[in-house]
């Protein structure tokens, strides 16, 4: 189980902002989300989208604990 948070255009695309998902790794989590919503799954793999586990950017896979927070971060635009 991990808490998943979506930001920016990803949350409009998915129609939700935050939920719990059963997954032991980031790869398994992506797979579970893509199985439910193929459009979101493709967007999470899209250009410039980064994943953060417990507020640290992760490249590749990572193990998840039940308390993990996974955030998907589309291209950033401040100022």
């Amino acid at each position, binding site marked *: 189980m991990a808490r998943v948070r979506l930001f*920016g255009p990803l949350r409009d695309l998915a129609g939700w902002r935050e939920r719990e998902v059963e997954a032991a790794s980031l790869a398994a989590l992506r797979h579970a989300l893509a199985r439910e919503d193929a459009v979101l799954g493709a967007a999470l793999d899209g250009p410039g989208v980064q994943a953060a586990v417990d*507020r640290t950017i992760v490249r590749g896979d990572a193990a998840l604990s039940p308390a993990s927070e996974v955030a998907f*971060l589309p*291209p950033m635009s401040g*100022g």
Partner: protein
Amino acid sequence: MRVELVEAAVDPGALLSAFIAGRRETGAVVSFTGLARADGGETTALELEAYPGFTEAEIARIAAAAAERFGLQDALVVHRTGRIAPGEPIVFVAAAAAHRRAAFEAADHLMDFLKSRAPFWKKRHGPGGEAWIEPSAGDYRDAQRWERQETRRP
């Protein structure tokens, strides 16, 4: 060094006065205020989303890198989140240094990184509906130019 995300309107003059007050070894303070534009009526409001906790930490990392590179004495970044009307400040940046060149360059550098590397997501609301704004190619180029160019230290 201070980083703040705020939901309420900010007063850049008051922020600048407070930042300048009480400095005896600072020769230069450069500040920048970014405002929300109406874009000829196309934008009625901007909506800024942050990732609380993560966003402040990333900005602090960007500010610390600028402080190190330019030898800053101090820096302040105040960024709005939530709904922002045209004419209202979105971001305020101030840099303090012994000499002006470092302060000018650090403020410029900070803004270039805030535009394309700080965790914010920006939506434009207008008569034509709403749309997420991605950084432009120019925004990415602005940040990249600091990777090539070395700065002159006083």
